[in-house]
């Protein structure tokens, strides 16, 4: 148990470090790039602003000429108190509150897509490996690989136009039906799932192949291992061998992959959100980019990173529960 806690703490330490790197990167990127951030930020006002107004706004946005390390510490201090600055395009809304509206939707969409895709993909992969050379094993991998080769957003667009616009089966935008109010009520929850269905489906289709193949390949290796032969030799029921002996072990490397994929899928989700006008981080991000809202952009990058790190830590906990060897 001691070891488990140590393991988790060590991972936590690692994520803290990764978070620090992300935070520092976030600080450095705008400062390393050419151009004065203030200039860029106010460029959009097309010169209607008087210099005194600009000076006043600079102050509001906390752009100072202080030495870089001093800026850095100010930045860290603000971050620690949950202050990521003020969004330019939503002035004077703080970045934190702009992001708050989107984060949960992103997590809901990307999370459910990822989990469904992972469960479905690994199950298919396990079955394909279990029945090597069977119908599933010979058809699914190339088919899913082909589907997965289409860009996320391309599939999303096509799906939107065919099933949303053309056939009218699915909503074209937003995360929940108008007229329902967010909360624990059935119309809202059903509506939220209905709205997430199409975007999630495109993401699932695009990523299913990867999971399936990864699972199939590890599973094939595991099925050749001695403890499978041994389990069969002991007369265990085939289902038990499949689930408790083969799949469970094959799952472990894929769970690590699950953690890694989080960032990737979230990235894909960003694109999907844009297509489906889904009010998540993705759309906010692209909007921030288009509006040159650098504080918002940085805030988004940071929260996404932190979310991914947090999720990875959860994955570590799951791994720990599933794999006694990590408790070594």
């Amino acid at each position: 148990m001691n070891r488990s806690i140590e393991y988790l703490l060590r991972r936590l330490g690692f994520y803290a470090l990764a978070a620090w790197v992300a935070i520092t990167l976030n600080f450095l990127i705008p400062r390393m790039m050419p151009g004065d951030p203030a200039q860029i930020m106010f460029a959009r006002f097309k010169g209607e602003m008087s210099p005194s107004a600009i000076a006043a706004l600079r102050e509001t946005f906390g752009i100072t000429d202080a030495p870089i390390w001093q800026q850095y510490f100010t930045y860290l201090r603000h971050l620690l108190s949950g202050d990521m600055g003020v969004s330019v395009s939503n002035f004077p809304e703080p970045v934190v509150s702009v992001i708050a509206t989107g984060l949960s939707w992103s997590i809901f969409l990307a999370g459910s897509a990822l989990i469904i895709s992972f469960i479905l993909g690994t199950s298919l992969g396990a079955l394909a490996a279990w029945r090597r050379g069977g119908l599933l094993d010979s058809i699914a991998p190339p088919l899913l690989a082909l589907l997965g080769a289409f860009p996320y957003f391309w599939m999303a667009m096509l799906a939107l136009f065919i099933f949303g616009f053309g056939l009218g089966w699915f909503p074209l935008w937003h995360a929940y039906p108008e007229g329902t109010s967010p909360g624990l009520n059935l119309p809202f929850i059903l509506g939220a799932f209905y709205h997430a269905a199409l975007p999630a489906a495109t993401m699932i289709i695009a990523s299913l192949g990867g999971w399936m193949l990864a699972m199939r390949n590890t599973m094939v290796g595991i099925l050749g291992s001695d403890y499978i032969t041994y389990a069969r030799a002991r007369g265990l029921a085939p289902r038990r061998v499949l689930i408790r002996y083969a799949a469970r072990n094959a799952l472990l490397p894929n769970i690590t992959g699950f953690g890694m994929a989080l960032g990737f899928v979230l990235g894909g989700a960003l694109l999907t959100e844009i297509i489906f006008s889904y009010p998540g981080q993705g759309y906010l991000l692209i909007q921030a980019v288009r509006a040159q809202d650098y504080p918002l952009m940085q805030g988004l990058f940071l929260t996404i990173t932190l979310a991914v790190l947090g999720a990875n830590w959860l994955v570590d906990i799951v791994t720990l529960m599933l794999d006694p060897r990590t408790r070594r």
Partner: protein
Amino acid sequence: MNPALLFKQMLANRKARAGMIIFGLFVLVSLVGPWLVQDPTAFTAVPHQSPSWEHWFGTTGQGQDVFAQTIVGTRVTLAVGCATGFLVVLLGAVIGGIAGYLGGRTDDLLSLLINVFLVMPGLPLMVVLAAWLPPGPMTILSVLVLTGWAWNARVLRAQTLSLAQRDFVLAAKVSGESTLRIVTAEILPNMLSLMTSSFIGATIYAIGAQVGLEFLGLGDISKVTWGTNLYWASNDSALLLGSWWTFVPTGFCIALLGFGLTLINFGVDEIANPQLATESRWARKLKNRATADGSTPVVAGGVR
């Protein structure tokens, strides 16, 4: 495994062969294609024209030839994809190789770096970086390399680590070989298939991410690439207008190229690990006899 042998084995593998044919076709198109088609940026025809003899894939919302755009777009997209793939593997091999071979403190530090970059979500970082940098293929290339090297470094480090403990490496050390020579002549050749599949994986990733960034308008939209083609298609509301032909061919090309590369990777995986082959001869032979419960199949008379 030496390159010639790997290539021979890839040719012998059904999947890899099919993949290489697809990939080769695209390379060919990217090399000679631009000379065979009309100027893709010329605003010559009526906008939103459906496919016809004159314009095989129809025309864009601005009256440009979609076929020409698709063909010409192959070049930059493929070049950026392959260049990224190459650089990512190079960087991964150097960093992963050094970490894996030297071990100790160096390894701890580099592994940390690799892992940090691994958990960093790529696309948001890409978007943020691309938003700051001047748009263009070089920006995309550097952003992709920056966000993509870690995965390969991790894989190659693990492989180097296991190879570095192998007896033949120790034997080379005992013979008095230099570190450089051990890495280049003893370890790297053994990672050839892994590096090939890393390269292909990275190229797939680079093409996808590049197209995504360009689709978001973060590329140089005055260039003709697959990503900008899609950007323009979306910008012209192609699907709304029913001009599916401005959107579909590029998507299919991306998918086909990606699929081809994936097939090569399937093949390389099977070469490196023959267990994985789906349709090996014995599998086909055994299909009717194989016992799903894993017991030994019995046949009277033999199979010779």
